[in-house]
């Protein structure tokens, strides 16, 4: 069956701009109301939801951090008891890593990647909807358990035997392990969508060497998710099996091994750092190019550095285990590989500096956050080189030095670029500008507050203060510094408060942004702000790496896509030559139903192994409903 023996279908070549937009909106729109909200598969609506939810979890995790700082501000404080404190630091870490950092980066990609590659929706949009619901369910599971005083209390990496059946009584560790399953299923789904969107849905002409750097970074990140997350799913599943049906994976008296947990966890856990950091790198490259008003210096080395970081990420995990007594040769290897990762990181830093050097930098808020990132991340990188050395690491292991180091890397390396990215892309997402004044205040408070909070922790660590203690004695020399840190944390929180106020205020009454307020070069700026439900009136045809700079006056586009069904261009992997005008699925309630069925099965399986069998039946039914053809024009071929 081809088009030839059918009556002519309406295509975008037949209509003027206004009529075309009306018809496309008819085909692609999400109806208003609750039903529309529950059934939508629009990547922009789901991406926005994902971002907002992740920031809500950021705020909640921040409140937990403040509670800890209140407790630690003075010795022998009685604000929080030891059991609640264990839950709080476990919640803070798990929440920030699994419910904020990874999801928010993927969420940015869910919103931006389809726009940046010039297509109309993400690949597998229903899977995308499913992913969000599963993520939300996992987050609710963790926070509801906290509200019921039964939150996990075993640390965010849940080491056995503490989390095993012998010491981890009750269901707390199971709730942690199953929250992992929820968030990893959600993350893996988005990773698959990103890989396929980037490989197959790029605008005609966007060959591999014309892909925007943020998209490259998300592609490498998606592969990291695909290769690394199965390790944590295997780890958390075997932990639940040990706890529920009496397997012995982590029981040394029956041939199991506690270190096996650490290997599996960190085989995921170290790539996880790069799953969070690489998207930030992509954001930085994008923002620096735009505000230096020139193409980024060293596109190829930057792409190579992304890929090299992604590969090296899998050879580093043992550096989290230097004090468990591994063979010396192994430790030396992992010291070397840990230091080797400084090479691609250095290449990136120098490419960015060269871009700034050769351009005319404009110091808008996104750029301030990027400069803050460079300073903070370099400090975090320096302490990283320090703890990569086994003798040094042995001294500071499990102290506040490590707490300081990873906050510098994660907050400096990922949250600063992310906040810059929010200021940068907010006009596209909402159609309105954020306030420059409030933005500068937010940056100043966050940058100063962050450094004042976390830099002293290096010293506390060198003075021997262990992490994860709920209080300390007055004889210890830590009280003054802790009080200082706690006050600084208030400055940091104030900065975030200003940021949130700015977001809410600007959503309502920010200055109207227009298509391309920053004069940027990538395709998401070639459509209106916020973009219409169909993203682009006609699919762009790309002839350069920075399409909007090489042709600022007009957009070259492809014509001939149908308007009576959701249709987009599928193109070849390397050259992005058009191959088909493929359909894209319509809105559907089935992803939500499938997510509900999956949620029931996963939570039930904490309590009974039979849940895996009986709970799978509704999942099978909902998936069949999801994929069963509905005789829509999208099913034609």
């Amino acid at each position, binding site marked *: 069956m081809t088009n030839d023996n059918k009556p002519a279908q309406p295509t975008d*070549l037949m209509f003027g701009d206004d009529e075309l937009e009306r018809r496309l909106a008819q085909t692609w729109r999400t109806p208003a109301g609750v039903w529309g909200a529950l059934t939508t598969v629009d990547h922009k609506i789901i991406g926005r939801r994902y971002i907002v939810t992740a920031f809500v979890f950021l705020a909640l995790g921040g409140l937990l951090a403040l509670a800890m700082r209140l407790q630690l501000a003075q010795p022998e404080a009685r604000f929080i008891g030891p059991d609640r404190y264990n839950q709080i630091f476990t919640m803070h870490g798990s929440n920030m890593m699994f419910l904020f950092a990874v999801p928010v980066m993927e969420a940015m990609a869910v919103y931006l990647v389809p726009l940046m590659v010039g297509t109309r929706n993400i690949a597998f949009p229903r899977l995308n909807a499913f992913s969000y619901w599963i993520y939300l369910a996992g987050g609710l599971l963790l926070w509801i358990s906290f509200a019921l005083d039964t939150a996990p209390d075993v640390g965010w990496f849940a080491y056995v035997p503490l989390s095993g059946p012998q010491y981890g009584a009750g269901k707390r560790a199971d709730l942690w392990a199953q929250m992992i399953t929820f968030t990893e299923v959600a993350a893996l789904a988005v990773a698959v969508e990103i890989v396929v969107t980037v490989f197959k849905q790029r605008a005609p002409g966007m060959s591999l060497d014309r892909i925007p750097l943020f998209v490259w970074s998300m592609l490498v990140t998606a592969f990291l998710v695909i290769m690394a997350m199965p*390790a944590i799913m295997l780890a958390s599943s075997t932990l639940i*099996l040990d706890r529920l049906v009496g397997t012995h994976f982590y029981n040394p008296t029956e041939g199991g091994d506690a270190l096996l947990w650490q290997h599996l966890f960190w085989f995921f856990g170290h790539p996880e750092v790069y799953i969070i950091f690489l998207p930030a790198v992509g954001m930085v490259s994008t923002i620096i190019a735009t505000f230096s008003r020139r193409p980024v210096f060293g596109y190829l080395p930057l792409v190579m550095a992304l890929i090299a970081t992604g590969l090296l990420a899998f050879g580093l995990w043992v550096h989290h285990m230097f004090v468990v007594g591994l063979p010396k040769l192994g430790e030396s290897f992992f010291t070397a590989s840990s230091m080797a990762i400084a090479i691609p990181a250095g290449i990136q830093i120098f490419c960015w500096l060269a871009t700034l050097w050769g351009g005319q930098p404009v110091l808008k808020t996104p750029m301030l956050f990027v400069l803050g990132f460079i300073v903070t991340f370099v400090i975090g990188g320096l302490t990283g080189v320090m703890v990569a050395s086994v003798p040094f690491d042995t001294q500071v292991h499990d102290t506040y030095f490590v707490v300081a180091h990873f906050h510098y890397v994660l907050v400096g390396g990922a949250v600063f670029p992310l906040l810059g990215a929010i200021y940068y892309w907010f006009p596209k997402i909402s159609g309105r500008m954020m306030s420059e004044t409030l933005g500068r205040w937010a940056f100043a408070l966050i940058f100063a507050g962050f450094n004042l909070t976390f830099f002293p922790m290096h010293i506390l660590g060198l003075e021997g203060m262990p992490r994860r203690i709920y209080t300390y004695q007055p004889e210890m020399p830590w009280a003054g510094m802790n009080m200082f840190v706690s006050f600084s944390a208030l400055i940091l929180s104030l900065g975030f408060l200003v940021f949130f106020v700015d977001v809410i205020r600007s959503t309502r009454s920010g200055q109207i942004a227009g298509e391309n307020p920053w004069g940027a070069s990538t395709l998401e700026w070639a459509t209106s702000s916020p973009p219409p439900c169909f993203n682009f009136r006609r699919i762009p045809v790309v002839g350069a790496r920075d399409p909007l700079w090489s042709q600022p006056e007009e957009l070259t586009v492809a014509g001939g896509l149908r308007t009576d069904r959701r249709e987009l261009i599928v193109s070849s992997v390397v050259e992005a030559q058009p191959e088909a005008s493929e359909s894209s699925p319509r809105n559907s309630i089935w992803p939500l139903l499938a997510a509900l069925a999956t949620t029931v099965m996963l939570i039930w399986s904490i309590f009974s192994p039979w849940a895996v069998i009986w709970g799978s039946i509704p999942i099978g039914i909902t998936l069949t409903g999801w994929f069963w053809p509905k005789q829509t024009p999208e099913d034609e071929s």
Partner: protein
Amino acid sequence: MKERVVLDVSRLPPHGMGRASPTWWGTCAFMLIEGSGFALAIAVYFYLMSLAPHWPIDAPAPGLVPGTTLTAILLASVVPNILLSRWARQRDLRKVRIGLIVMSVFGAVPLILRGFEFAVLNIRWDDNAYGSIIWTMLGLHTTHIVTDLIDTLVLTGLMFSKHADNPRRFGDVEDNAMYWNFVVVAWIPLYACIYWVPRL
């Protein structure tokens, strides 16, 4: 921004087949995820083995008959599976229907044998870590057979329905066939680990 049409895509096929299909790539990505899972399970197997003073731990090696028969059947199933994939590419509905019925049988029979496999492992999952990992490996692979069998049964139903005569369905059949090949290939190293490594 002003638009200039420089490319006409109205003659493109309305559905991508094979590597022009996003579903094909999505299936590959899921195989990569699950392949990583299998590889890690095998790594855990050898890790535990490296710690144990003797392997298997406190149990005779598993009985060979059901597992080897199942392996032979899985390998044999590749032939009709490849034929089915070819018929789907040729969009020969009659042969595809026959092929799907054959592959449903090839999906169901291993499940029966799998029951016997668990019975001759000679160890329970809660006896020791060796028992835990081989039950997990076998269980993990069984979920893949079940998943693909259900997928095949649903597809068979579809191909006997009014929705059948559509290139999109034939693409689904090809992707499902590819996934079955993955289920077979993934089994080979698991089979070697479960049945032959304890006999080394």
